[in-house]
């Protein structure tokens, strides 16, 4: 390899399953190379740097010295990212902005080298790597470690550039699907704001310099036998990393390992301790449960295994006809979650009352002394209990991650009592280790406070930002003589650490990770690091007896030992493991955890006074605990239920809003489709205060205020800094998830929020058809009750014939839970730009597929009408049935958009696609006006970032990057259709059903989206379209959409219906 310089110079080495020892070795070569490089850079003087910069080949050098000068203006330049280009356009650019724009392009010129020297000598492959055909993507299996959750993925790689993430069907936590976060994680890889080097006190250091320093530090702590040596990490499921750390703890017996996940609850572990006297990992078999009760658990959209659970859940809601049965889901929760919104029955309860409910439910099932409930809940418990009784062994009670130990223990007890254990769920040894969470960080703070910590390794995470506020982590960290922070960004914590090591993205490094059921996967890199970044393995190794040991070797080493008790030894299995993305035989065996829990022993609790406001903390659905704050895709992705973008807001119930007289004001710039002004409130809680915007959310428990975590970042990068409010400020260790005794007072000011769908009801139009299972059985044709679609033969014109393929899509609204995976998948596949908050507030977001959220039965008792405005209270908003509807281009056969285009820029293909010809489009926007579904998106400004080199690497080369002034929209992933068509034609056969998978379809965890050839009666899509539930939106317009919907069917309990 090394005797081929071109291989070396080519910055994008595809690291495939051919990534064997030789590959790892190759990494070494690079390291030395870099070090030499950085050393040289360091001796440059400023003048030389400016000179270099003028030559536009300055790149790395220039960054170095500027950062050395720590020039705030430079920081500003550094933090440029695509949304600003968009967001500032139509305000007349003032001088300052103009300078910034200039500066930005310079800064980007500086980064253009992606941190590596002599990029200018890039040459094409001389000897083409095996299995790589230029112009055809390769897919590599790897896994995305994410706290205690791991998702196995297949990554699409174009000539060595990872461009798109798909689910790995062989991986138990993915089953082929992904989530919005997984889809968006690829943007983090190319984020220009990533930290790019090792730094000491703000100065660039080479890795070898760090290794030297680490060696000295190591020898010091060795002297004290490791006393004062602390390791703080997040939850990890990596066997190798765990082993490395354990090994380190052996070397330094006095050293301590702390784990802190700000958005992971302790309830599950403590609950297990309570129930079984030991920590266990609970794995659900959702598909086997007929009745599911969620005690404030969002198991369909968050937590380990949620993608798999969503898939299993939706498979039990597949309806081929009225005779089919469905599972039933009850959700008790304080605030509408994805799971709650797609439940058959949803009961809004304050977080603290969920435990009461659990006790009462347990009581009904003969566990413990029960509890007395009031109002609707009381009625609920009886019926739910009965329903569970009827389904012994086929029911499931899931406790929420943020619920206290008691709720989890009760859930275990109930499941045991119902004989569900071993059927709808089973227990295994813990996956993510049990190094504690809140206690761990508490102990660490105490130690630091007493000056007992001299050396602290912070592996990822951002404790300065997200540690409980009362621990005052910052000041305690200051007492640590040497803190080393491994992090993808130079964030709040890095600023207070002596050393900062830029962390590699999971697509850049070797590692391993376990799925929710224990199955292990090798994490293999798709691209050699873009910058001088390192992984946790490297950092731990630096302090171990094998400093400088590459991650690859560490992983190999661990699995060489581990494979001894696996079906195949590493030498035999390695390539297959990498190829499949899973290691066979690593699935955790079920253990039988014997219940040592006496529900009666639980300390008595009584419900807090009903009018007392309860503040609860939840990770934001998109930026999670803040780690995705700089991800433009996730920032601009409308939250599943609130449809808010770019901000978090304190979520309150309509009733509370009415009491406090918190009105929303829809702004005419953007309006219902963009901008809403809401009041700002001061939230005083736990002796500290934060100012937040309030958002009225129908279905919220009356006196609950949700404070989403992850916002108000100080040093997140350009995209994430100073967005929303920081809920961690009022979050203290005594009330991590729910707090009372706080005050919420209006400041009198207001704040604009970017909300992509404000109006929530359908105004009696044929848009989202829904019914209960019993109604469906009575009238299988309910979806066409008010359908006024004229019969085809009524047309004056002879319809165009579509022989051959007729592409069509069917979306099952019974299955869709609004999780957003499809939206981001589409954005990633189709190079869809991010436009920034200001443009979203003008109603100009670009998503090709959007998910509409409607509340049904919201006509108020009094007027019989609603304005569709959540801030105008009416009782039906207390808990409205919620439905989601993904809306891509409907690909109408009689497309209204085509008829009005003056230049024929949108025309119909022979296969029924509504093609958009960007080159021909002159941007009259007439098509969008005439599109009844409003799925067309227009480049009002140059939204696409054409400058940032990293983003160029990320783009899908098979999809045009649109410029300013042209219309765009969903194409049914025509590039995928054509790729498959080419293969099929080469093999002289027709395209098989299911061979073409659109980006949204492949991402969907619920299998709600099905694409295929509607002409083939045996195709899945044709079968779905043949169902009576199948209908088209606004059929009366006779636009003949190719995208049709299967009406939503819910399976409520008749008894509860009556009540």
């Amino acid at each position, binding site marked *: 390899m090394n005797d081929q310089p071109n291989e070396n110079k080519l910055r994008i080495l595809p690291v495939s399953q051919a990534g064997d020892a030789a590959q790892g070795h190759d990494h070494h070569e690079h390291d030395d190379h870099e070090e030499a490089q950085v050393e040289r850079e360091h001796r440059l003087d400023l003048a030389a740097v400016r000179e270099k910069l003028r030559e536009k080949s300055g790149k790395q050098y220039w960054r170095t010295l500027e950062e050395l000068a720590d020039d705030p203006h430079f920081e500003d330049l550094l933090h440029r990212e695509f949304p600003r280009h968009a967001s500032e356009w139509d305000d007349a650019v003032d001088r300052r902005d103009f300078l910034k724009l200039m500066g930005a392009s310079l800064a980007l010129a500086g980064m253009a080298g992606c941190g590596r020297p002599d990029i200018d000598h890039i040459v094409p492959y001389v000897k083409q790597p095996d299995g790589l055909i230029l112009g055809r993507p390769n897919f590599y299996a790897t896994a995305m470690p994410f706290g205690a959750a791991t998702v196995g993925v297949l990554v699409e790689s174009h000539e060595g550039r990872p461009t798109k993430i798909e689910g790995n069907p062989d991986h138990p936590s993915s089953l082929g699907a992904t989530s919005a976060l997984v889809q968006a994680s690829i943007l983090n890889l190319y984020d220009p704001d990533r930290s790019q080097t090792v730094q000491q006190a703000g100065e660039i250091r080479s890795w070898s310099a760090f290794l030297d320093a680490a060696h000295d530090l190591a020898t010091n702590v060795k002297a004290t036998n490791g006393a004062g040596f602390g390791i703080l990490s997040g939850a990890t499921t990596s066997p190798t990393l765990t082993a490395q750390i354990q090994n380190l703890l052996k070397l330094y017996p006095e050293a301590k390992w702390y784990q802190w996940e700000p958005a992971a609850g302790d309830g599950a572990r403590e609950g297990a301790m309570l129930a079984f006297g030991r920590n266990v990992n609970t794995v659900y078999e959702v598909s086997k449960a007929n009745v599911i009760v969620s005690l404030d658990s969002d198991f369909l959209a968050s937590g380990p295994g949620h993608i798999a659970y969503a898939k299993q859940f939706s498979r039990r809601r597949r309806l081929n006809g009225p005779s089919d049965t469905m599972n039933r889901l009850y959700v008790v929760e304080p605030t509408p979650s994805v799971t709650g919104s797609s439940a058959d029955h949803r009961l809004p309860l304050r977080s603290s009352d969920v435990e009461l409910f659990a006790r009462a439910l347990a009581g009904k099932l003969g566990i413990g002394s029960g509890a007395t409930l009031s109002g609707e809940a009381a009625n609920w418990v009886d019926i739910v209990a009965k329903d569970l009784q009827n389904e012994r062994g086929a029911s499931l009670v899931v406790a929420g991650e943020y619920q206290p130990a008691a709720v989890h223990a009760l859930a275990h007890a109930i499941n045991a009592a119902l004989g569900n254990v071993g059927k709808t769920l089973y227990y295994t040894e813990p996956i993510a280790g049990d190094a504690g969470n809140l206690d761990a960080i508490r102990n660490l703070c105490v130690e630091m406070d007493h000056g007992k910590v001299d050396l602290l390794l912070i592996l990822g995470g951002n404790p300065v930002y997200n540690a409980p506020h009362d621990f005052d982590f910052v000041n305690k960290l200051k007492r640590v003589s040497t803190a080393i922070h491994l992090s993808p960004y130079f964030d709040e914590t890095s600023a207070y650490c002596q050393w900062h090591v830029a962390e590699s993205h999971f697509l850049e490094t070797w590692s391993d990770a376990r799925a929710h059921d224990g199955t292990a996967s090798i994490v293999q890199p798709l691209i050699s690091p873009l910058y001088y970044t390192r992984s946790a393995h490297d950092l731990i190794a630096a302090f171990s007896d094998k400093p400088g040991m590459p991650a690859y070797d560490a992983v190999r080493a661990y699995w060489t030992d581990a494979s001894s008790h696996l079906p195949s030894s590493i030498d035999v299995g390695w390539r297959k493991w990498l190829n499949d993305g899973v290691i066979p035989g690593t699935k955790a065996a079920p253990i039988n955890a014997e219940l040592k829990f006496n529900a009666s022993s639980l300390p008595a609790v009584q419900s807090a006074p009903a009018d007392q406001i309860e503040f609860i903390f939840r990770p934001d659905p998109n930026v999670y605990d803040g780690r995705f704050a700089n991800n433009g895709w996730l920032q601009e992705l409308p939250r599943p239920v609130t449809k808010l973008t770019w901000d978090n807001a304190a979520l309150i119930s309509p009733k509370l809003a009415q009491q406090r007289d918190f009105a929303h004001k829809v702004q005419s710039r953007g309006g219902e489709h963009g901008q809403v002004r809401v009041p700002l409130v001061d939230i005083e809680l736990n002796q500290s205060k934060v100012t937040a915007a309030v958002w009225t959310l129908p279905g919220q428990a009356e006196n609950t205020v949700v404070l989403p975590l992850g916002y108000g970042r100080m040093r997140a990068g350009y995209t994430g800094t100073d967005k929303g409010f920081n809920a961690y400020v009022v979050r203290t260790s005594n009330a991590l998830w729910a707090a009372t005794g706080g005050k919420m007072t209006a400041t009198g000011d207001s704040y604009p929020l970017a909300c992509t769908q404000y109006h929530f009801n359908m105004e009696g139009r044929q848009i989202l058809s829904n019914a209960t299972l019993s109604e469906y059985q009575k009238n299988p044709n309910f979806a066409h009750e008010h359908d006024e679609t004229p019969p085809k033969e009524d047309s004056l014109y002879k319809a*165009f014939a579509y022989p051959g393929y007729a592409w069509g899509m069917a979306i099952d609204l019974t299955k869709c839970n609004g999780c957003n995976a499809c939206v981001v998948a589409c954005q990633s596949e189709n190079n869809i730009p991010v436009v920034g908050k200001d443009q979203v507030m003008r109603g100009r977001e670009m998503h090709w597929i959007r998910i509409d959220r409607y509340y049904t039965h919201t006509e108020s008792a009094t007027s019989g009408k609603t304005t569709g405005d959540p801030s105008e209270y009416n009782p039906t908003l207390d808990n409205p049935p919620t439905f989601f509807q993904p809306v891509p281009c409907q690909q109408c056969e*009689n*497309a*209204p*958009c085509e008829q009005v285009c003056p230049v024929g820029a949108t025309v*119909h293909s022979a296969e029924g696609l509504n093609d958009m010809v960007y080159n021909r489009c002159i941007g009259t926007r007439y098509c969008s006006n005439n599109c009844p579904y409003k799925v067309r998106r227009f480049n009002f400004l140059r939204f696409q970032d054409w400058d940032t080199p990293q983003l160029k690497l990320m783009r899908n080369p098979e999809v045009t990057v649109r410029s300013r002034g042209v219309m765009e929209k969903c194409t049914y992933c025509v590039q995928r259709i054509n790729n498959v068509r080419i293969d099929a034609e080469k093999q002289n056969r027709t395209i098989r059903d299911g061979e073409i998978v659109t980006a949204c379809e492949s991402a969907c965890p619920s299998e709600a989206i099905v694409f295929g050839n509607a002409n083939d009666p045996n195709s899945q899509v044709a079968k779905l379209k043949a169902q009576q539930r199948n209908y088209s939106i606004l059929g009366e317009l006779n636009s003949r959409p190719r995208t049709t919907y299967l009406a939503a069917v819910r399976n409520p309990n008749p008894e509860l219906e009556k009540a």
Partner: protein
Amino acid sequence: MEHHSHLHGVMGEFETPEQLLAAARKAREAGYKHVDAYTPFPIEGLAHAIGFRWTAVPLITLIGGIGGGLTGFGLQYWCSAITYPLNIAGRPLNSWPAFIPVTFELTVLGASIFAVVGMLALNKLPQPYHPIFNVERFASASTDRFFLVIEARDPKFDLAESSRFLQEASARHVSEVKDEE
């Protein structure tokens, strides 16, 4: 007067349209063929009086209109149905009702352009030079004077004779029109 200049005709100047009209009629009766009248505004029957009856302008306009219309529909049909047929919104390739507006507009456009260009052409305009302008007084033809010109090329033309004729026809002033070429 210059030897190389020859006579274009004699010009009689009248006070009122009525006098001019009468004079023109007399001239016709007297057998003059090449007579022309100049007036600050169109006068009913004057053209007829000087023996000018039929004009081709309407015919030219008709041709222009028909041509425009055919072009209009032909263009649309050819584009939409023949040279580059596309399935637009499931409408037939020859969506003739949708082609009416453009056809109509082009009909009007064709007719109008032909009408104007035709009128100018028949009037031999633009014409940079005409002998009549050599007469000083003629400037008032565009204000309040009315002129009758008996041209020299008329077989019956005789300078003295024709001048007298005009005077008798109550022209308040008679002048020769010289053609300086």
